[in-house]
């Protein structure tokens, strides 16, 4: 635990205003300032790691809105994550965690094979039958929540179907290494296909290496720093062999993690160089607004932008996606209140803390509803999953889409599906 960060907190309370869990609880224990104080008291031996204390800390979404707000540069979300990381390192991973984090995530083939039954389950109509019978209610609530989150999956993951090299259209501008997020590839393949299409249309040669592995964010969530480092080294070696100008991802969570490889690998020069090349798709596209402006066709649609925590708070990207949306002729962008407030997805938070996740989601849905937008646009798969199921229940006339899906729809003049 970083003592200096803990004592740097001056307890001004600025973070309370933007913390989603403080807004719901009004409790100091549900606030970033309170979490830093708890960690400090643990470090100083004043408090023990009691069940209650761990429960308070586990309520943190790690959305890092507090880090954006903090005048002193303290990142309470990260400190809590590190604390759990150190606990895991000391106690070891559980059996199921080990299976997923060490034996599935680092091996995309296995991960994809493991999700095949899910695809089948949906395809043969079992899902409808099971849902209608309320069969899932027999299982722990977590299974039902997981099922509720799942949209219909593409027939095959994008990693298996995308060409390893997508040639540029028109004059070649440069080469991009495309980082495929696990969830993007497995669930939102069409959005990532759209990202690659946009890059190619702008003159980039897009290399999507099939040997790339998970960014390591799930390991970080589970406190498995060792697993994360293994995956980081693998990705360094895969992308290190390519001559690319940028490493681009359309997954906010992956982008945030890839940009921290330098930090995770003790500032290894190759890792720093890798991280320096990483761009969220919106950052690279926004460098070419002039060209895009001439290419985009009208889309008469009203949208609102949801700032994913991993994009706005972790990467500081807010301007670029809005600029891109405004390029689409006929599109109206309406800002929602607290656009950068978490939607409650938070990695596996939705499954770990269902009650709080629902309350945070409800507040987000209220902000969305007030705008009257037809489409909520965002750039992170966790938010896509969370908002999709939230909207289906609460605002069925509103859809959620990835930024690049909407841009690609405008590029081809096809209204979004």
């Amino acid at each position, binding site marked *: 635990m970083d003592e200096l960060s803990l004592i740097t907190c001056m307890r001004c*309370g600025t973070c309370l205003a933007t913390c989603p869990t403080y807004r719901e609880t009004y409790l100091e224990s549900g606030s970033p300032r309170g979490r830093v104080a708890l960690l400090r008291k643990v470090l100083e031996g004043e408090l023990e790691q009691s069940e209650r204390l761990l429960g308070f800390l586990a309520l943190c979404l790690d959305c890092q809105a507090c880090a954006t707000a903090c*005048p002193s540069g303290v990142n309470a979300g990260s400190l809590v994550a590190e604390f759990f990381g150190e606990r895991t390192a000391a106690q070891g991973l559980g059996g199921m965690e080990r299976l997923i984090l060490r034996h599935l995530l680092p091996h995309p083939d296995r991960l994809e094979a493991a999700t095949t039954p899910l695809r089948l389950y949906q395809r043969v109509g079992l899902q409808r039958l099971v849902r209608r019978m309320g069969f899932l209610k027999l299982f722990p609530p977590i299974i039902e929540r997981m099922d509720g989150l799942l949209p219909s999956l593409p027939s095959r993951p994008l990693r298996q179907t995308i060409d390893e090299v997508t040639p540029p259209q028109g004059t070649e501008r440069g080469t991009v290494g495309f980082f495929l997020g696990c969830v993007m590839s497995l669930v939102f393949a069409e959005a990532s296909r759209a990202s690659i299409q946009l890059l190619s249309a702008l003159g980039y040669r897009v290399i999507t290496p099939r040997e790339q592995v998970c960014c390591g964010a799930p390991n970080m969530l589970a406190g498995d720093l060792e697993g994360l480092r293994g995956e980081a080294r693998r990705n360094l070696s895969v992308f290190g062999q390519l001559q690319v100008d940028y490493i681009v991802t359309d997954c906010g969570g992956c982008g945030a993690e890839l940009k921290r490889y330098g930090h995770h690998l003790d500032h290894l020069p190759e890792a720093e160089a890798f991280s320096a090349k990483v761009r969220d798709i919106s950052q690279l596209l926004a460098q070419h607004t002039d060209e895009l402006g001439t290419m985009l066709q009208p889309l008469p649609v009203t949208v609102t932008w949801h700032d994913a925590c991993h994009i706005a708070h972790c990467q500081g990207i807010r301007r670029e996606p809005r600029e891109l949306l405004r390029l689409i002729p006929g599109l109206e962008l309406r800002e929602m209140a607290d656009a950068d407030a978490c939607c409650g997805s938070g990695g596996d938070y939705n499954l770990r803390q269902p009650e709080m996740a629902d309350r945070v989601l409800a507040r987000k849905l209220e902000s969305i509803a007030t705008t009257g937008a037809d489409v909520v646009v965002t750039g992170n798969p966790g938010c896509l999953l969370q908002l999709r199921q939230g909207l289906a229940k609460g605002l069925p006339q509103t859809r959620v889409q990835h930024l690049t899906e909407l841009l690609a729809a405008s590029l081809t003049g096809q209204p979004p599906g």
Partner: protein
Amino acid sequence: MEPTFIDTLRGIVGPDHTLSDRESLALYGYDSTPELEARPAVVLLPGHRDEIIRVMELCHGAGVSVTPRGSGTNLSGGSLSAGGVVIQTSRMNRILELDEENLTATVEPGVITSTLHREVERRGLFYPPDPGSMNISTLGGNVAENSGGLRGLKYGVTADYVMGLETVLADGSLLTTGGKAVKDVAGYTTTPLLVSSEGTLGLFTAITVKLIPKPRTKATMLAHFTTMEEAALTVSAIIAAKVIPATLEFLDQVTIRCVEAYAHVGLPLDVAAVLLIEVDGHPAVVAEEAAAVEAICRGHRASLFQTAATPEEALNLATARRTALSALARVKPTTILEDATVPRSCIAPMLQAIQDAADRHRVTIGTFGHAGDGNLHPTCLTDERDQDEIRRAHAAFTEIFEAAIALGGTITGEHGVGLAKKKYLPRLVGETGIRIMRGIKAAFDPQGTLNPGKIF
């Protein structure tokens, strides 16, 4: 405290809103004040006035102390309790009424200051007090501390807007003072006495504040100066020219260098002071006043003068001021922010006194603040692990407060006395001042159960 007593309180406020576990209580041991900690016995988050009345009656009968708390952002230790009951008002956060005919708002104590701003501004109205913590501070806390903010020079502070209060006293009796009538001379004017009472006289359950029409437009300007004297003379000259800016903020050289190191906003390092000036009101008046401010700044050899043409540019010009505290807070782990205040004509000698005290005690103090109303924020950058330096910082601040008093100013312009400034108060108000304050306290709370140990 007896567990059965806590159970009785729990019965009144509800188990979900009663905290008595070790971990939670540890988190109510602090507010935003550096170095102070105390542990309450129980924390209550009531949802209704009647719950507060019953809790106060019960505590009064049992001789148990009660300390009110909003969001815990005060800088005087005023919301800390040693062994007593803390009442956090956050759940009582309804705006009860916006009266557009009388231009008043009536709110519960837990309403967040910036929420009230947003709601009244949507209707073309304006509630000016804007303390630095306004995005999380509560109106109840603002009234108890008489919070100031950036707009104090032209628009005054919280006290200038509180028209009426509903207050629960220490024994549970309900006191209603003031109201929506602009004129009211029936007996002692009690409302202003309750404003800035720091939770020692009563707990507010409803607050009626005055609203004014929202200024139609504003102009934002930034000026650099190579000497502190020129900047201070500029401030005096602007006021002497009968221009009252809504905002007249300044940064000193230590702060400027920290801001530049942190935010890279392009501040030249030979700049000794930066002034951020905003005039607001009717467009014709704003244009005239902005021209006057520009002429005065240029006449005082401003090394750079900029006027914002768009709201985005205005935000950019305000960047240095907005990041001042962040920039200072990142230099060293511990940041001690004070609020010594002097008549505005004494800003230059006060800044000199701050610099001398910092030099004498070998500590780094950056100063920024509200130049227009003489409210300065000398901010000491230190490290709580270095006990020697902390001692020197306190020695420097003691001299700074003495200098403020000597210049006809005060030890605290907007943070309050609480625990942190208790020892300096007698020097400012004298024995008679303390005697009168004690008398007022005794009239409201003869047993002394309400927020004991604060102010004097």
